[in-house]
Structure formats: structure tokens, C-alpha cells
């Protein structure tokens, strides 16, 4: 028994030793290489921190606005040569650092971020173009920012710092819970609409502005992420996309023909109430835009035809009160007999 045990353990040991070269060949991390990379990272970090020290000598934790908390952000990762030092964004700012004039108020740094409204620092912010160029020197490579130039935000002299807080660990605009309050600071009409009874779950933190819009510019209307309104809506409302055997033309054209995306007091996000909404396009046989009243005769009265005393089709405006009670498949139907979007 003892012999068998020894044989088994010896076998396991030999198998283990044999498998080492295979394991190495299979690409397991080489410890030597790892140590080298670690040392490169340390060198990168030391050099970057040395550059930062020129600024952090004065601008430290005593600042009114948090400065050093940038080290809690992705920009502050020092072991990566791609991440910036203070000078990468603010420029070398030699006049500011050396203060050769010897005046009490130093010359401003090369690039000062912020907006006229939002800068609490001692210096006025740099031109929007200068600020954006500093950010886009790295972030411009991202395809999502291809349309920044010419976009509504850029043409209105907005800068990255208008929305983003780079030095704080929690950039409000990049958090689902807090992003809307950043956008609504300017887009006040949309804030009001989002508080209406029927709304996308913006206040609830489930939907955010950047789910539909690309604030960095886009080829679509209203800075939408996709090229058209419908394409953008279909990213979530895929069941409305079709293809349908019986299409409803305004659905394929533009969802905002009937809906208002930021909120409405008519569910579901409708611009107007049926039948009036449908009446905008449809003036069909059993529909009338004329108001029905108690003393109105004929078809408009709802029940009888005055001349033939036969039962007439009631006015939908009066009797049905809504088109969608019957035309339930308003976004399109795949039923062979669904031409009227009944089924």
C-alpha cells in the first residue's frame, strides 16, 4: 500500500514538472517581463509626478476648488504614459510659474478651463477653442467626438469644462443619477417636460440624456446618437421597428410626429389626445373634427340617421372617444387582415 502511494505521488510530481514548459509555452505571464514593466511604470510615474510638482507646490489641498483629487480619476493614473500631467492640459505656463514680472498677480496659465459663469478661479477662462483643443488632443481620436466641430454645443461656445469636472473623482455628467441635472442647467424646457405625468424615466435614473443624444456632436438631428429620430428610438423600442406587413407611415417617418420625447401629460408621451392627434392627418369616413353636442342631429348625434331612421355609424369623436380603442396596432400590423391596424 505504502509503495503504491509513493508511486502515485512520484507520478504526480513527474507530470507536474513535465507540464511546466508547456504551460510557459502557452503564454503564462513571464515574471521577469512583468518586473520590467513594473519598473517602467514606476519611472513613468516618477517623471510625471516631477512635472506635476511644479504646480502642486502651490496648488495643493488648500485650494478653494479640489485640485489634488485628480489623482482619484483616470487622468491621475501615473503609471500610464498616456495619461496627462498638469502641463499636458494647462500648458507649460512658464510666465505663470516663474512670474518674471514679479507682480503680486501672476500671469495666467496658458490654458485656463471653465466658463465665464462657472470659473471660480482668479483668471478668466481661455477661449473655448483653446480649451477644447487641449482636450481633443487626446480625446479627439474617439469616433464619438468626430462631429464636435460644427455641433450645437461647439457653435454655442461651449467647452468640455462646461459640463465635465475633471479634477473631481465624481464627474456628475458621467453618472446616470446626476447627469440630467447637468444638462437641465441649460435645457430648462426639457427639465419641465421631464416632470410631466408621462415621461422617460429620467428623474428615476433609468434613462439619461446621453442614451439618446450625443452631446459631443452627431450627424443626426438634435444631436441624436443615430442618424434619424426613428433609428434612435428603435435602439430601445425595437418592437416598433418592424418590418410590418401594414405600416403606419408616420411611424416609419418620425416618431415625433405623434410623440414628444421629453414628457407629456398625455400617456404615452403623446403630443395631443386622440382623436384630435389622429385627426391632424385623418379625416376619414367615421371621423369628424366638428364638435359633437347634445342637440346636433344626424350622424354627429351618434346613433341614428335622421333621413332613413337607420342606425348610423357614430362619430368616433363623440362615441368612441379614441381611435386607439379599435386601431390598437398603431405602429404597424403583421396580420394579413390588419390593413386598418385593427389587429
Amino acid at each position: 500500500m505504502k509503495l503504491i502511494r509513493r508511486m502515485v505521488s512520484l507520478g504526480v510530481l513527474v507530470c507536474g514538472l513535465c507540464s511546466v514548459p508547456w504551460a510557459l509555452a502557452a503564454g503564462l505571464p513571464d515574471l521577469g517581463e512583468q518586473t520590467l514593466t513594473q519598473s517602467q511604470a514606476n519611472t513613468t510615474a516618477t517623471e510625471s509626478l516631477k512635472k506635476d510638482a511644479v504646480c502642486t507646490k502651490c496648488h495643493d489641498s488648500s485650494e478653494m476648488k479640489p485640485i489634488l483629487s485628480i489623482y482619484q480619476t483616470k487622468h491621475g493614473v501615473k503609471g500610464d504614459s498616456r495619461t496627462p500631467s498638469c502641463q499636458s492640459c494647462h500648458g507649460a505656463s512658464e510666465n505663470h510659474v516663474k512670474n518674471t514680472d514679479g507682480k503680486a498677480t501672476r500671469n495666467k496659465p496658458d490654458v485656463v478651463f471653465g466658463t465665464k459663469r462657472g470659473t471660480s478661479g482668479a483668471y478668466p477662462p481661455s477661449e473655448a477653442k483653446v480649451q477644447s483643443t487641449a482636450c481633443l488632443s487626446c480625446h479627439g481620436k474617439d469616433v464619438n467626438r468626430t462631429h464636435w466641430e460644427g455641433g450645437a454645443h461647439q457653435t454655442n461656445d461651449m467647452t468640455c469644462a462646461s459640463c465635465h469636472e475633471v479634477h473631481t473623482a465624481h464627474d456628475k455628467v458621467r453618472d446616470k443619477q446626476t447627469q440630467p441635472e447637468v444638462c437641465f442647467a441649460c435645457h430648462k424646457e426639457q427639465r419641465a417636460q421631464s416632470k410631466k405625468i408621462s415621461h422617460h424615466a429620467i428623474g428615476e435614473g433609468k434613462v439619461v440624456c446621453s442614451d439618446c443624444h450625443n452631446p459631443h456632436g452627431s450627424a443626426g438631428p438634435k444631436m441624436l446618437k443615430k442618424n434619424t429620430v426613428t433609428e434612435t428610438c428603435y435602439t430601445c423600442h425595437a418592437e416598433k421597428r418592424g418590418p410590418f406587413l401594414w405600416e403606419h407611415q408616420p411611424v416609419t417617418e418620425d416618431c415625433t410626429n405623434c410623440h414628444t420625447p421629453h414628457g407629456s401629460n398625455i400617456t404615452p408621451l403623446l403630443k395631443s389626445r386622440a382623436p384630435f392627434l389622429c385627426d391632424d392627418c385623418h379625416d376619414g369616413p367615421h371621423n369628424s373634427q366638428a364638435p359633437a353636442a347634445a342637440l346636433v342631429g344626424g350622424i354627429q348625434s351618434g346613433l341614428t340617421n335622421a333621413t332613413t331612421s337607420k342606425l348610423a355609424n357614430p362619430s368616433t369623436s363623440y362615441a368612441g372617444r379614441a381611435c386607439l380603442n379599435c386601431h390598437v396596432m398603431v405602429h404597424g400590423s403583421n396580420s394579413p387582415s390588419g390593413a386598418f391596424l385593427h389587429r
Partner: protein
Amino acid sequence: MKVKVRVNTLLSVVATVFGLSLSANACAVDADAALSLARQNGCLKCHSVEKHKDGPAYRDVAAKYKDKDHAETVKKLINHITSGEKAKFPDGHEEEHKIIKVKDVAQQTNLIEWVLSLPGGVWPEKD
């Protein structure tokens, strides 16, 4: 008669306590207000309470003027922060000292009194 004496004694004690509390209030330094004022005016870019930066640590400043005439020191330091006189930097170059934005003498005095009240400094300062 006895009652009259007691009343007089009581009154004098109350007056003394009241007087003492008034003088204590007059001398009290509002440290929070002073630190906030220093922060708002960017004083802490070159100075720190404990650490030597381009300018001396505040507690070392307190140590420097510890044995000097207090009223004279306050006057001198208020002039230092309001006149823009030249300040020498560690590398030898000179710059105008930043002028504090607040014009209220009471706030300026509170700041200087706070600096001078800081304990534990040494002069000549150590880095």
C-alpha cells in the same frame, strides 16, 4: 446694613464677570474665519500653517514675533499683506506680496492675530 453690603458685593462680582467676558471676547480669535479668509485670498498657495512652502509656515511666523511688541507686530504684518511690499522667495527672486482683497481692518486683524496665536513654531525656521 448687612443685606446692603451683600447686594453691593454681588453687583461688583457680576460687573467684574461681565467685564472679563467682554475683554475675553475682544481678544478672541476666530480661527475658522481667519483660515477661510486665507484660503479665499490664496494665501495658502505660498504659506501653510505647519509646512514651509515658498513662504514661511504660519506657526514659524508666530515664533518669530513671539517676543516682540504685539501691537507693533500686528501693525507691521497688516502692512505686509495690504501694501504689496516685496517678498523674497527661496530661489532669491523677489515678488510683490499679494494684497489681500478684504478691506475690513477687523478681518485683517483677525487673520494676523490668528497667525500670531499659532503655537509650536521655531525661528529661524526649519525646512
